[in-house]
Structure formats: C-alpha cells, structure tokens
C-alpha cells in the first residue's frame, strides 16, 4: 500500500495534476454539501434531496453528449428541478413523495437513455453514477469554486428565513416570509451542491454527502452553525482520507468517501456524548443499579 508520505509526493507530481484537483473538488464540494445538507436534514427532506440529486442527471447527460460544460448542464437541470419540486410540494394534501418519486426516477432514466447515445457509453455512465478520481477537468475548477461560494453565500444570507420556515411553515407564512421562494432557494442550493460533488462522488452516492455528515453532526451538537461546522469538518476530513485510500488501494473514490462517512456516523450514533446509544445504556444501567441499591436498603 502507498504510504501517506508517498501520497503527499504524488500530490505535488505535475504528471498527476488530476490528483490535487480531485482533492480540491472533493473537499470544496464536501463542505458545500455539508452546509446545505444541514438544512436538508433539519427539515427532514432527505427524499427531496435524493430526487434533486437524480434529476440533475439528464442535464449532465445532455451536456456530456453535446460536449458542453457538465457543471453548467447539471446546474440548469438542477435549478429547473428545484423549482418543480418546490411547486409540487406546496400542495401538502397531495402525497408529494409519490409524485417526486415517479418524476425523478423518470428523469434519471431519461439521462441514462441520453447518455447511451454517446460513444464509450458504458465507461462514462459508470463515472457519472459512481464518480471518478480523474473526473474533473481543469477548466471546470473556476466554475466549481464560484458555484461553491455562491451556494454557501446564498444559504448564509437567507439563514434566518430558512430557519423560520423549518421551525413552523404556517407561522412563517403569517409573518410574511415568502415560503415558496425560500423552498426554491433551498432546493436550488441542493441541486447546485449536488452538481459540484457529482463528478468525484457520483450521482448515486452524492446523497450521502448531503445527509450523512449533517446527521452525524446533529448527534454531536445542539446549535445550527456549530452543526454546519462539524458536518463540514467531518466531510472534508473524510474526503481527504477517502481520496488517499482510493489512490493508495485503487478503490472507487466516491464509495470510499461514503464508507468513511458512514463509519463515522455509526461511531457517533453509538458513542455520542449526550445522545449516543452507549451513553443511554450506561445511564439506564446506572438508574437500575441505583434502584436495586435503594431496594436493598429499604429491605
């Protein structure tokens, strides 16, 4: 196995320029996904996140087939999707999850059909679905960075309103907050975050970057901004280690990162200081022991 210092040397090797690029893109997209994903997790809209992630695919496929920029193609498809999801989910009496489920798996299928027309279809399809360490061309980097700043900026600027809508939609509406616009903004941010991450992590696995770090952070902290920071820190760390392992052991990049994130989640779920399973078990044990003692004394 490649040692860590050899990995650092490879990072500076000009012949392997894609490697630091992959690292940069993975870290930046992990950070953006963690920040947006915090809102996704708190609003309990992981399914909508999944839908948007899948619906980005036809845009990527069209851009790929016609040789356009994948980032722009995905962004256009993603934002269209975001508006559509927001409109569909306004009617709360309708079971919107079914509609979203039907529509966006359909969109995904269209993407697969479109990309099957391209030459070298099998390889590119696999890259789209599962990501690739060589995935990001150098000319996409500026778009990715601008996109990242934009998404984090927008989510921060509207944080107060996004929080108010999550806390209580009806009161937010009575307060005069444009609830529909806030939904569109959040869903569009999800779509853009997905587009940023999709080339390294892949379309199927990108949901993990949105949900897992934020869910882990929720187990560890009790405030919004610290939750975003913890989620981003975990996610960036896992991306870095994931790319190292992927390079050293020739493992698929996206899957390695997601496996790491999932392990961290499992660890937090078991051992979180206040809400973890272990702590709860110990607490129950102590109470039982205490009761037993009291019982003995009483007798």
């Amino acid at each position, binding site marked *: 196995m490649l040692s860590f210092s050899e990995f650092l040397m490879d990072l500076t090797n000009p012949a392997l320029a894609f490697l630091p690029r992959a690292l940069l893109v993975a870290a930046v997209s992990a950070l953006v996904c963690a920040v947006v994903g915090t809102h996704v997790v708190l609003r309990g809209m992981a399914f909508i996140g999944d839908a948007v992630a899948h619906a980005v695919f036809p845009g990527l496929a069209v851009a790929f087939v016609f040789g356009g920029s994948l980032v722009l193609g995905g962004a256009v498809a993603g934002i269209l999707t975001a508006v559509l999801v927001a409109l569909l989910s306004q009617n709360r009496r309708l079971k919107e999850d079914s509609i979203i489920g039907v529509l966006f798996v359909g969109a995904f299928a269209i993407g697969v059909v479109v990309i099957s027309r391209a030459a070298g279809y099998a390889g590119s399809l696999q890259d789209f679905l599962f990501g690739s360490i060589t995935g990001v061309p150098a000319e996409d980097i500026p778009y990715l960075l601008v996109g990242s700043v934009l998404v984090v900026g927008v989510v921060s600027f509207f944080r107060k309103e996004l*929080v*108010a809508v999550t806390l209580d939609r009806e009161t937010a509406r009575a307060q005069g907050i444009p609830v529909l616009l806030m939904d569109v903004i959040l869903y569009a941010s999800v779509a853009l975050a997905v587009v940023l991450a999709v080339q390294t992590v892949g379309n199927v696995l990108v949901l993990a970057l949105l949900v897992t770090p934020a869910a882990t952070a929720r187990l560890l902290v009790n405030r919004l901004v610290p939750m975003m920071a913890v989620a981003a820190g975990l996610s960036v760390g896992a991306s870095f280690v994931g790319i190292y392992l992927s390079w050293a052991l020739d493992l698929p990049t996206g899957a390695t990162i997601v496996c790491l994130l999932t392990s961290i989640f499992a660890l937090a779920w078991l051992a979180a200081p206040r809400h973890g399973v272990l702590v709860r078990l110990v607490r129950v044990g102590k109470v039982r022991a205490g009761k037993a003692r009291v019982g003995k004394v009483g007798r």
Partner: protein
Amino acid sequence: MHNDSHAHHALDVRCLNVTLGGRHILDDVSLHVHAGEFVALIGPNGAGKTTLIRSILGLIPHSTAGMSAYGVPLDARTVRTRVGYVPQRHEFAWDFPITVRETVVSGLTGILGFGRRAKLEHQKAVEEAMRRADVTHLASRPLGELSGGQKQRVLVARALVLRPDILLLDEPFTGLDMPTQELLNDLFRGLAREGCAVLMTTHDLISALDQCDRLYLIRERVRAAGTPDELREVGVDVWMDTFQIRETNPLLGALGLRGKDGKE
C-alpha cells in the same frame, strides 16, 4: 395608543365563509374582539376554530367579506406587524438545534427583512417577551430540552416579541399542567388589560368560562356568543347542539348549566 380604538373593534370579522376541499367549514361567521378583551372560541373538534384563526391570518383562501383591525383592512402587512400568532404546539419543529432566545428572536424574521439582523431595540423586545412569558431563565437552553409547559411559554414569547395589538392563540392550554395554565391565563389577562385583543381557541371550557371576558360557541356557524354569565343562560340545548353531546353528559353539570327540568 390608537385614537380610534373605541370607535372600531380591535379585530372585526364579518360574514366569513370558508370551503375547503368541497366541504363547508365556516358559514357566515362574524365575530369581534375589543381592545382589552380576552375572548375564547369554543366548540368540538372539527368545528372550524383553527380554520377561523388561520383565515384571520390570511393563510386560508376565504370570501373576503370583511376583516379589519382597528378600522383598517386586515391585509398581509397588518397581520405581519400587528398580529401575534401562537400555533398549536405540535406544529413546531422542537427538534431544531436552536436555543430558546434564538427561537424568540426568530419571531422577528418577518419584520426584519432579508439580510437584516435584530438591532438593540429588537433585543429589548426579546428580553421583555421572554420575561413576560417567564422563560428568561431558559434563554440559552436548547429547544429539545424543554417540557410541554416551557415549550408553550416559548411560543407565546415568540409571538409577543412583535408587541402585537392582537394575539391569536390556538389551543394554548392543551396538555398543560395546572400551574402552567394559571401562569398563562394570568399572562393573557394581563396582556388584555394593557389593551391587547386576545383571541384563543380552547377545549378547556371550565377555565375559559372562568377566565375569559366573552366566548363564542362555534360549530360551522356561531351558535352563541356572550359573557360567561350570558352563556350559562342561553339554555342547555345550545350547548348540547354545539358539542353534539347528550343531556346526561357530566360536562353540562360541571359548567353549571341548568338542565331542561330546572335541575343543576
């Protein structure tokens, strides 16, 4: 505070009709609340109490026969600046990672506007609202660690942060213990005494008859309205019809309503 407050009702709803999904929920409902009054809406489940509150807030499409606050039409801007709303407790995302103080501050979101943060004058309103609802000592506690009564007081503080002229409360007492109910009743009456118009829905009829200035019996229509004493005299039939209960229901006796044969 308002020169015209005695010429106009603080809150005036005229001939409100609401139909949802083809079902008639409210039929020609008219009601008013004076400044300084504490008024209860009572009626069985599905009577349209919550729908009435939500209509006043402009959350439900309705025939705009006429709603006004202190003589001005009750449009979105008036609602945003002058009406405080306390939703039912289960409508709120209590698992959100946020402190009590931040929750109260978030009551200002609508009036602050995009990209603006609470200023000093707002902070004063936040402190005052928390003090009135008796949650100051909980200010830095996360929402997830509150009891039911504490949660209800946080929601009230969140509504008070706007210093509303009109306060709408949807079942504020449901599931609360007696000390919390007493504290909230004192608070609502105190707000009314200072000139606020307070309108709440409740299922706690005994407490409502004891504490409120006037009550509306509602089931699709206004079945009766008046002071507690007036409502005790309207006849047991009206109560039985509104709540769809039998003459033998112990509730009627507990409310001190006379049966048909004149017995208590």
